[in-house]
Every structure is written in structure tokens, then in C-alpha cells.
């Protein structure tokens, strides 16, 4: 059943995950009330109000922006993961594992250290810094990992780990040198989507819209690139241009994900992999499906993170790592005999 109408199914799951995420928290608010509060916000709609004002404030000022930021982050991670996997023709390429997420994190933290955002304009600079960090990292990882015309699995992961560790260390160094902001930056690094309020959401949105449109346009390029660069050229693709487009796109979406939520691992690995197993390898479908699925998956992980040790909240990165690391090892073992890749 889920094979036939993936967009409807994933859309429904995403909707439920969104409602759950808004409803859950220290104060439980019934889903019906959540929907009432949201509908009440629409212009010219008068909804019979039967909730205290504090509920509306919790929903609109705290949970809704948090939920949207998490949804954007999950979508960006899974979308860029699918693109990197297609680009490197490698099931283990994910923004976290190949070090791009750490590079983007360094870019974001650098911008924050020199110019802590005071207004919305300040927030807009952060994804840009992350984007530059991601591009530099991917260029370094790619040139280190490449042997002749191919990018083997082992060198890709090794150079990803090396560069990722290096940029993480630089990030820590920057953080330790900016005392008053240490707490903020540290929780950022732990991947808790700790930036709150509407400003991070508003600052992410324009980058995200551009990133998603570009990701969807990458689908056909990635399909042709699956035959290898040589055959792609013989089939008529402008290979260099296509690769450049995909790298810029995936780095931009990684930057969006990392900017306000820190480095969250494994969503970009697991979601595209599952989508490929269930719905096949056509990247024109795989990418939008990964975007929907990534959004839902991170929302659900975030819900878990909020209820496991309630009333405290776990950084969502810990939940994705706990679930993702075993999955990563499973793929690593399977990859040798992978027929559907």
C-alpha cells in the first residue's frame, strides 16, 4: 500500500508528526486545541475560544517555531544526504559522515562569534557563513578522497572523518575563546535545535526555499550521473556543470540544517536509504520523498527527545545518534553485497 502512493503517505505522516510536535511538551495541550489555536490565527476566522491565553502563547511563541525549525532541519538533512549519496554514488555519503555538516557548523559558529545576531538581519548571516564553511569542506574532502577519476568509499569516509574532526576542533576552539556565548554555542554543537523563537525560522526560510527547489532540479542530473561520469558525458550531460550544481545545492541545504540546529547526524543517511529501498532509485522522486521523510523523522526523534527524560529535554542529536549509529553499521555491512544501489 505504502508503495503505491508514497507522497500521500509521507504527507500524512508529516502532518501527524507536526501536530504531535506542537501538542507535546511540559504542558500537554490536546491536538484539537492545538488545531483550534492555529485556525484561530487565520485572518477573518472566529474560532470558539475555550483555552487559556497561556496556551496560545506556548503554542505560538515557543512550540510552533521550534517545530517548524525542526521540520526544516530534517528536510534539509535528508535532502542533502540523498544528493550527496547520488553524487558520490555511495550509500554512506551523508553530510555528517563526510564532514560537511561539521564544516558548516564551523562556518556558523564563526559568524556567531564575530557577530552575535541581535536582529533578524544578524540571523541571515549565519546560514551564509555555514554555506561557505560547507563548500570549503566539501572541496577539501573531495580532493583528498579522490583517486584518479573515482572516489572510493574508504578514502571518502576517512577524509570526511579527518576534516570533520579538524573543523569540530576549530569550532571548540572558537567557542572557548568567546566566554559569554559559550553556553549558547555549546548547546548548539550538541544538536538540540536550541535556537528558539521565530527569528531562526525566518532566517532559514529563504535559504531553504531556494535549496529545496534546487534539490528537486538536481534529480535528473543525479540519475544520469549514476552511470559514472564517463557514460554521463556520452549520454549528453554537461557533467562538470551538473556536479557543480549538485554540490552547491547539497552544501546550501546542509548549511540551512546546521545553522540553527547544530550538527545532527544520521538523518541524512537513514532516510534516503530507506526511501531508496522502498521506492527505488529514481532521484527525481527520491529527493522529494527524502525531504518529506526527513522532516517527519526528525520531528519524531525530537518528540522522543522531549519525553524520554521529561521535564528535561534531550538534544535531538543524541536521539538520532542512538538510533542512527547501529543503522549505519548495518548499512556498512550490507553495502558490500548491496544489489539495489
Amino acid at each position, binding site marked *: 500500500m505504502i508503495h503505491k502512493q508514497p507522497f500521500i503517505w509521507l504527507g500524512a505522516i508529516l502532518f501527524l508528526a507536526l501536530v504531535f510536535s506542537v501538542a507535546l511538551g511540559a504542558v500537554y495541550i490536546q491536538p484539537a486545541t492545538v488545531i483550534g489555536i492555529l485556525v484561530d490565527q487565520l485572518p477573518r476566522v472566529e474560532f470558539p475560544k475555550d483555552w487559556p491565553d497561556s496556551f496560545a502563547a506556548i503554542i505560538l511563541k515557543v512550540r510552533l517555531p521550534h517545530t517548524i525549525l525542526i521540520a526544516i532541519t530534517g528536510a534539509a538533512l535528508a535532502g542533502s544526504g540523498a544528493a550527496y549519496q547520488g553524487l558520490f*554514488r555511495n550509500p554512506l555519503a551523508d553530510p555528517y559522515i563526510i564532514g560537511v555538516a561539521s564544516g558548516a557548523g564551523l562556518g556558523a559558529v564563526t559568524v556567531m562569534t564575530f557577530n552575535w545576531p541581535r536582529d533578524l538581519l544578524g540571523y541571515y548571516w549565519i546560514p551564509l557563513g555555514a554555506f561557505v564553511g560547507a563548500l570549503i569542506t566539501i572541496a577539501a574532502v573531495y580532493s583528498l578522497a579522490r583517486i584518479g577519476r573515482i572516489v572510493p568509499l574508504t578514502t571518502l569516509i576517512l577524509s570526511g572523518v579527518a576534516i570533520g574532526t579538524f573543523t569540530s576542533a576549530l569550532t571548540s576552539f572558537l567557542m572557548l575563546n568567546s566566554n559569554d556565548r559559550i553556553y549558547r554555542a555549546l548547546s548548539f554543537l550538541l544538536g538540540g535545535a536550541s535556537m528558539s523563537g521565530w527569528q531562526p525560522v525566518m532566517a532559514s526560510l529563504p535559504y531553504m526555499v531556494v535549496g529545496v527547489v534546487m534539490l528537486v*532540479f538536481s*534529480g*535528473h*542530473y543525479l*540519475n*544520469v550521473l*549514476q*552511470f*559514472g561520469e*564517463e*557514460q*554521463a*558525458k*556520452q*549520454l*549528453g*550531460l*554537461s*557533467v562538470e556543470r551538473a556536479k557543480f550544481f549538485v554540490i552547491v545545492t547539497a552544501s546550501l541545504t546542509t548549511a540551512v540544517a546546521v545553522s540553527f540546529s547544530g550538527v545532527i547526524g544520521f538523518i541524512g543517511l537513514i532516510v534516503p536509504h530507506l526511501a*531508496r529501498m522502498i521506492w*527505488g*532509485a*529514481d532521484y*527525481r522522486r527520491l529527493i522529494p520523498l527524502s525531504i518529506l521523510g526527513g522532516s517527519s523523522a526528525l520531528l519524531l526523534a525530537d518528540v522522543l527527545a522531549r519525553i524520554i527524560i521529561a521535564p528535561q529535554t534531550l538534544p535531538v542529536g543524541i536521539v538520532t545518534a542512538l538510533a542512527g549509529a547501529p543503522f549505519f553499521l548495518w548499512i556498512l555491512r550490507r553495502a558490500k553485497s*548491496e*544489489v*539495489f*544501489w
Partner: protein
Amino acid sequence: MFEITSLTVSYGATTALRDVSIRVSSGEILALIGPNGAGKSTLIRAVSGVIKIDSGQVRVDGLDLASVSNGERARILGVVPQAQPLGGAFTVEQTVLLGRTAHMNWLGQARPEDRQAAHWAMSKTGIEHLAGRRNAELSGGEQQRVLLARALAQQTPILLLDEPTNHLDLQHQINFLTLVRELAGQENLAILMALHDLNQVSMYADRVALLVAGELMASGAPVEVLTEENLHTAYHTRVQIVSGLEGYPPVILPRRV
């Protein structure tokens, strides 16, 4: 008319091809032969725009291929690469449709004529029944036919094949070459095919070009090129040519050393 003139290609300091000139007419199969490392694959990769040409020209009906984009080249010239694993997760139909890349827009949407071309190519190569199967599930012979179908779907007047019968059993070798022979005639294609098996060359090729160490040693009709002297010089192996067998072209028999 497909015309390679004075083609020279080098990898760094080593010259892989030196001053090679070859012509292939429509409806004709030209077999490219020569020992390992003679430059057969290099020639196919250079002509298809994958590696850089140092000097010389590749022209199709007077048009210099160096002056066209990848997309335009892929509408003129299709390539069947040496056997290698195909993207395993694609279905056969998806793979063949991607042969239409040069005809599609940048979203990769298949128009009715793209689907028609893909289905025509699949029926020509006898793989229509495999359309929904994934490449990873196919045998070597089936994958080779998928690659041929993908190149046919490009609907180009010229086809380049790089040792397409490697890894195929006898039945599939003969079926494949017979199919290529038919396509040359029916679709009036100009076909340049690198081959190892000299008897298959003798059976299927209209003309032969013999490459040795990057240079064209001989070219012409099979009987002119496949001589005991030429083959000894090229392969450092004594052969005997046996002709007059009923229903067979001249047969090449290597001698034991």
C-alpha cells in the same frame, strides 16, 4: 560519413594514439582490432569526447565534433561501453530511457517520443520483457543488451561499441553481433566496434582497422587486413588463415608456440 583524421591522443608523456585516420560509412561495420593496450578504447573515448584530443579531427558529415556540446554529440554518436556493473537500483526501462538524456529537458521528463524511442530500442534488442526488472538482477548478456538498447534509444546515426562481447558466452556473442549487423543494415548506422575475436571480425565486419601501439598498421576489407604477416607483426603470434570452408569466411587459427 564518419571520419577520423590524424587523431593524436596522449596520456601525460605517453602517446596513446598517433596520427590515426579512419572512415566509416553509413550501413557499415568497421572493426577496430589490435593487441591489448594498442589504443582501441582510447580511440573510442577520445571520439566520444571523454578524453582530450591533442590534434586531429573527428567529423560527421563535415561537422567537427570538437565544436559541439556534450548534448549535441550525444545526438550524433551513441556509445556502448565495455561491460561494467550498471546502476543496480535502476530498472531496465529507466536505464534505457536515460539514453534520451540529450533529447530531454533538464528536469528529465520523458515525452511520448522518448518513451517510443526507448520501447523501440528495447524491442530491437529483445529486452522488452525485462523492462520492470532492476539491472542488478540481470545476467551479463542481458546487461550488455541493456547498454546497447540505451545507445540505440539515443537514435544516433553513429554507434561506437567497446568490446561488447567480452564476458558473454558463445550464444550471446553470436546473437549480439548478429543484432549489430542487422542494425547496421536496417537503420543504416555507421558502426565502429572494438573487438578481440578475429574470427568474429572476419564474420561480421565490412572493414577492419588494425591498431598497434597507437598507430594504424593496416586498414581495409577483412581479407586484406587479416593476413598471416599482419597478425604476426601485430600480435607476435603465428596464425594460419584457412579459407574455402563452405559457408565460412576465412578462419584464423593461432598456432601453438
